[in-house]
C-alpha cells in the first residue's frame, strides 16, 4: 500500500478550483472521473483477443484498419471523440466475435457509423460509409452489421475513451503553468 504524507496536503493544488463554470463540468469532476474509471473496467476489451478469439485477422490488419479510419475521420471531418469511440467499439466487438479478414473493414466502418451517430451532431449517412470503401459493401451489409454490433454490445456504448482521461491529465499536468499549450486543445 502507498502511504501519503498528510503534511504535504497543503501543497496539493486543487485543479478544479479555477473553473466554476458549469460548462467545464468541474463541479462534479471528482465523482465523474471515479464513475469513468469504474465504467472503463466494466467494458474494457480483452487484451489478447488476437490469440484467443481471432484466427483470420492479425495485429497488422487491425493497425491498417485503424490508420485508414483516421483518414476517413479526417475526410468526413469527424470529431476525435468519434475516432476514439470507433476504435473502442472495434476492439470490444473483436473480443467477442470471430471475424474474417474480408469483413474486418465492414466492421470498421459500421463501428464508425455507430460512433458518429452517438457523438456527432450531423453524422455521415450510411451511403457515405459505403462510398468510402469504394462500394465494397452494400447498404444492407452495413445495416446488418450495425444490428449485430449493437446486439453484441447490448447497446452499451457509453464507455470512456482515452480522450476523456487525457483531458484531465493535461489539466493536472499543466496546473502550475500560467498559459496552457494550445497544441493539446486539438488532440
Amino acid at each position: 500500500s502507498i502511504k501519503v504524507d498528510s503534511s504535504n496536503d497543503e501543497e496539493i493544488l486543487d485543479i478544479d478550483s479555477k473553473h466554476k463554470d458549469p460548462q467545464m463540468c468541474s463541479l462534479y469532476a471528482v465523482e465523474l472521473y471515479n464513475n469513468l474509471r469504474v465504467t472503463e473496467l466494466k467494458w474494457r476489451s480483452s487484451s489478447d483477443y488476437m490469440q484467443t478469439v481471432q484466427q483470420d485477422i492479425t495485429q497488422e490488419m487491425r493497425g491498417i484498419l485503424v490508420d485508414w479510419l483516421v483518414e476517413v475521420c479526417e475526410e468526413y471531418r469527424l470529431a476525435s471523440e468519434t475516432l476514439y469511440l470507433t476504435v473502442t467499439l472495434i476492439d470490444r466487438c473483436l473480443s467477442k466475435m470471430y471475424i474474417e479478414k474480408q469483413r474486418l473493414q465492414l466492421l470498421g466502418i459500421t463501428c464508425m457509423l455507430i460512433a458518429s451517430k452517438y457523438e456527432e451532431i450531423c453524422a455521415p449517412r450510411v451511403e457515405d460509409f459505403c462510398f468510402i470503401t469504394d462500394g465494397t459493401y452494400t447498404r444492407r451489409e452495413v445495416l446488418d452489421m450495425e444490428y449485430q454490433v449493437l446486439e453484441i454490445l447490448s447497446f452499451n456504448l457509453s464507455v470512456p475513451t482515452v480522450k476523456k482521461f487525457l483531458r484531465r491529465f493535461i489539466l493536472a499536468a499543466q496546473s502550475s503553468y500560467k498559459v496552457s499549450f494550445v497544441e493539446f486543445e486539438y488532440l
Partner: protein
Amino acid sequence: MNIKVGVYSSGRSISDLRLRVSIHSSESSLMEKYKLIAKIKKGVFQGLCLLSSQTVTLKQLGFPDNEGVPGSLIKEITLLQAMRHANIIKLIDVVNHQEQSSIVLVYESMETNLTSFIRIYPKVMKIPRTIKELLRQILLAVSYYHSFDIVHGGIKPANTFIDPATNTLKITDFVWPRTLFNSNTEDPNEELGFCYKAPEILVEHKQFSTAIDVWSVGCIFAEMVTQKPLFSATSEFHQLAKIFSIVGTPSEETWPGFSRIYRYLHIYSHCKPKDLRKLVPGLEPAGIDLLHKLLYMDPKGRITARQALEHVYFQN
C-alpha cells in the same frame, strides 16, 4: 443472406441470434414474454411481464429502414443502461426487430406523470411535505446523472412519473440536448416543453451545461406549489420575455456576458424581478430562497443539484 460471422464465446452464429428478438434475455420472443394490456398512446402500451408478473410500459419506436437505428435512440438506450438509480426509470429490456425496423423498449411501469398527478391528487400536492419529498427525489436523480456528465435537457412534468402508491418519482425520456434541437421527431401534441427551458438555451448562442436541468427543476418546484406553470408562454419565442418579466431582464451586473450570447437583448423592455413570495404563495421562506437559487439567471451562479440537496429547505 449467408452471414459467416459468428459469436465466438458461445459458439452461436449470428443468424441464430437474428431469429431471437431480444437482446437481454434471448430465450423467448416479445409476445411470449409480455402481454399487452392497454394502449396508452400511439406506440406506447401497458403490458405485463409474464415472467415476473410486473406491469411494464412498452414503447415501440419505428424508424426508416435505410439509415439503421437512429442516433437519438442509440443514445437513450445507452444512457439508460449506464444509469441505475431509484429515481430514474429503469429500462428492463430492449427488443430489436430488424425486419420491422423498430425497437421496443420495455420500461418499468409508468402510468401517472407529474402533470396528471397534480390534476388527480390536488389535495395531496397541497401538503408541503409531499412537495419537499418529490423535489428531493428529482434532485437526487439529477445530481446522480450529472455526476456521469449527462445532461437531460428536457425535464418537464410530462416526463416525470410518480407511483401514487409510494410517491416514488422517476425521471424518463433522456435525450441529449444537442439532439433535442435538431430532431423533428417530437410529438406536437406533447406538452409544451419550452416552459421549462433555461434562458441560456433560448438564445442564439446556446450554452449547454448541467445548469439547464437545474433551471427546469426550479420551474417544476414552483409548479408543484401553485399547480400551474410559472413561465407559461404561448410560444418558444415569447418564453424569454416571460422569464424576464418574472426574474428580471438580465444586465451586465446580473448576468455578465449575456449580451454576447444574445444580440436581441435590447428589444426587451427592462423588467425588475417580481416577488416570488407573491407568485408562489404558500411556500415557506426556505423554499422561496431555494427557488431563487434554482432560478438564478446566470448559469454560472446557479445552484447545483448537489448543493440544492444540502439546502436548509430539506433540513427537518
